Each structure stands twice: as structure tokens, then as C-alpha cells.
């Protein structure tokens, strides 16, 4: 239950971090908040020979509003800061709402936005929200920079589109869709624990009250954030009636999610939860969209 030995580097600039990442390639692991990596190292599930501690990189700790009204969040921004940031509450209420579900306060004090994304736990909330909001990830290496859509970034269980030598530096969230209603809900055995299942809904209505755009994302029911596109398309152009919600929930829960049973929940129970959570989140998102409320409600 103690980590294996490693060489430790704590670069004080991104440039220095990228050089070290390039030099050590696949032997190096980046240490962000350490709330997932250090447990894995304590169990010796992961034994990096070189650890690049990014915690000196204050240049990656920021929340900025873009000119278009979106957000740019530095990869080393602590989750606790995101939870309390007034710009995030105002510009991206879905992200603000989800933060209290991300583990426990002690974890959020250390855990970072970038760390959670790169860890890519299918039970984590932040990757689901990134995909729901069509976020883009800025990735740097000594070679240069590239940008990846959240949907392409998450490739599978704990697997992301990041090569050795590359470091995630920023998450960019596009402007909030005008008038969108949102909801995030999950079922966990204890608040802050990994959820048995969770769902995020985002939708906009046209002037006739028909669904214009819908996004339905799920956590812990697949090997990555599950995007229920078929269920969302079913809603688009329609009135979001109880029947339409039930039909979308049925599609998502039976055709689109791919849960793996564990000791806490059978596949049948997870499908049940997905159905219930779809209905609950859609109803809440619908009410918020109908109120045209933003940041509250």
C-alpha cells in the first residue's frame, strides 16, 4: 500500500513541463490533483518511473470568459474553484450544478478539471459534462498545440486521445446555448461516492415550445460518457410531452447505454436508473427552458 519509487520533477513552467514530458515519454505520468493517480500508485496499479508534478504551474489555474461568452478553464484549476466561480455559475449553470456531485469537499480541494478529464473514469461527472457541452480540449507538447473535441478525446475506459509527451492544458466550453434548460442528476449510495448511474440533459425550445436541440449524456453506463443521440433526436422537433419523455428514456435505457454490472448494481437496475434519470432530468431541463431562466430555477 505504498507507491513504488519514482523520480520526481516539479517543473515551474509549462515549457519546462513539456520538455520533461518529451524527454521521458511513456515512462512519465503527470500528477495533477492526484486524487485518482495517487490511490492507483498506493495500490501499485500504476508504477510510473517518472512523476511530473504539475502543481507549480499556476499559469494553468484560471477561469476566463471568452469574448463570445464561453469559458476557458485551465487544466490545473481546482474543482473547488470551479464549484464557487461566479463566472461559471452565470455562464454555464450545468457545470456549476454538477460540481457538488464530484466526490467530497476534501477531494475537490485538490482535484483538478484537467486531471479528471485525462483520468477518464466512465463514472466521473466532468467528462460527461464536457461532452454534453461540446467542449474542446487544448493539448500541448514541445511539437506544438492541437485541439480535440471532447467527444473524440474520450476513447474508452481510462483512455483518452493523448500521446506520450502531450499535456492537456485547457478546456474550452463554447457559449451556453441561448435559453437552454439543463439538469444533472445521479443516484449514488452516499452523496459524493461514485454514482451507480447519472444523467445530464440539455435542451432548447423553439417559439412554439417544440424541442429544438437536445443532449442526453450518461455516466457509469458504458466505458466512456454515453451520448444518447438517438433518444435526443427523437425529441428534436417534437413537443416534450410525458409520452415523448418516456419514449426517449426507453430508447436511451435499452438501446444506447451499455452498463457493466458490479456488486452494487445489476445491468437491469442500471437500465432502470437510466430510464428514471432521463425522465427526471428532461422534466427539470424542460421546466428551466420554459422559464427561460439562466443560472437559477
Amino acid at each position, binding site marked *: *500500500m*505504498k*507507491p*513504488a*519509487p*519514482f*523520480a*520526481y520533477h*516539479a517543473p515551474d513552467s509549462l515549457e519546462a513541463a513539456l520538455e520533461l514530458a518529451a524527454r521521458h515519454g511513456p515512462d512519465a505520468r503527470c500528477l495533477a490533483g*492526484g*486524487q485518482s493517480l*495517487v*490511490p492507483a*500508485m*498506493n*495500490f501499485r496499479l500504476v508504477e510510473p518511473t517518472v*512523476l511530473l*508534478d504539475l*502543481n507549480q504551474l499556476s499559469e494553468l489555474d484560471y477561469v476566463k470568459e471568452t469574448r463570445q461568452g464561453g469559458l476557458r478553464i485551465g487544466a490545473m484549476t481546482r474543482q*473547488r474553484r470551479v464549484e464557487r466561480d461566479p463566472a461559471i455559475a452565470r455562464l454555464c449553470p450545468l457545470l456549476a450544478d454538477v460540481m*457538488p456531485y464530484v*466526490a*467530497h*469537499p*476534501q*477531494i475537490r*480541494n*485538490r482535484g483538478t478539471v484537467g486531471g479528471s478529464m485525462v483520468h477518464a473514469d466512465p463514472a466521473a461527472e466532468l467528462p460527461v459534462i464536457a461532452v454534453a457541452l461540446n467542449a474542446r480540449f487544448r493539448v500541448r507538447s514541445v511539437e506544438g498545440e492541437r485541439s480535440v473535441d471532447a467527444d473524440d478525446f474520450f476513447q474508452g475506459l481510462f483512455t483518452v486521445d493523448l500521446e506520450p509527451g502531450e499535456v492537456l492544458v485547457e478546456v474550452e466550453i463554447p457559449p451556453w446555448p441561448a435559453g437552454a434548460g439543463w439538469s444533472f442528476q445521479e443516484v449514488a449510495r*452516499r*452523496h*459524493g461516492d461514485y454514482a451507480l448511474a447519472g444523467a445530464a440533459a440539455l435542451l432548447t425550445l423553439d417559439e412554439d415550445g417544440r424541442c429544438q436541440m437536445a443532449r442526453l449524456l450518461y455516466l457509469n453506463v458504458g466505458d466512456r460518457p454515453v451520448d444518447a443521440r438517438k433518444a435526443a433526436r427523437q425529441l428534436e422537433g417534437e413537443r416534450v410531452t410525458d409520452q415523448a419523455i418516456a419514449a426517449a428514456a426507453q430508447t436511451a435505457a435499452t438501446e444506447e447505454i451499455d452498463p457493466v454490472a458490479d456488486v452494487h448494481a445489476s445491468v437491469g437496475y442500471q437500465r432502470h436508473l437510466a430510464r428514471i434519470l432521463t425522465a427526471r432530468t428532461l422534466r427539470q431541463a424542460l421546466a428551466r427552458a420554459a422559464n427561460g431562466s439562466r443560472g437559477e430555477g
Partner: protein
Amino acid sequence: MRADLSVTINGQPIERQVEPRLLLSDFLRHELQLTGTHVGCEHGVCGACTVLLDGQAVRSCLLFAIQANGHEVTTVEALSDGLEDLHPLQEGFWEAHGLQCGFCTPGILMTLLPFLEENPSPTDSEIREAISGNLCRCTGYQHIVDAVKVAARKMGENGRS
């Protein structure tokens, strides 16, 4: 390979050379004999090892000691010098029977210290959420919630935190 560590622990500057893989929890207990910080699960679930890093509650088993370089760490030992000088938070736990075996208590106290400074009169559900990252297997939590309310009242009365 050892690295130089310079850290302030409970107000005292400490200089040591440490192996980078040494966890902060083990550094506190084995190198500084500050055994008030307990180690339960050692993977960030139980909360027994919670300490303050620059005033914020964190799991000391998920930090390498070397990461505290240049920072301030506060452990449960900072709360009081002994039975005659209990912190109001500790008095609250004493009076409301907020512990039985006491294993989880240091982590719970250190979790609650910044919480009560920020939220001096919390509701029951806020208290339960605040301690959701701390496991107690004895008390069923009810007495802990009561203890926090007693402590909050005491801390409000004498203005000490």
C-alpha cells in the same frame, strides 16, 4: 533519491530530506511523530487522514510529502495542548458523544474546522454533506451531527476558531 522539503507544520518550520514517494500522512506520523493523523484506507476513501493544506481540508494519504514543500500543513495536534485546553470543536464532540473508538475523529475535526469557519451555523443536511467524505463505523453519524451543532454554537459564542 531524496529531495529537500521545507514545510511549516502547525506553525513550526520543518526542514527534512524525504524520498519523493513518501506520503504526507506517513511523513507526519513516522518522521514527525504526529500520530494524531490517522491512516485508514490509504486510498482517499475514509477521510481519517484529513489535514489542512494552506487552510483547506485535504487527504494527506493522497499527497506526497514533497508536494507540501513551501506550504503550511495543520494537523489535529494544532487544535489543543491537552484536556484543559480543548478546542470548542473538540468540546462539542466530548459533550455530544461525537465519537466512540475515535479513529475517524481527527479527520472529521480537520474537515469541520474550515467548514465551520465558512459556515458558522450549518443545517443538518449541510453538516452531513460536509462529513460525507469521512467514514465513521461506530456512531451512526447522528451524534457527530449533534456534536457539530454544539461546536458551532460554542465557536460562535467565544469567537474562537
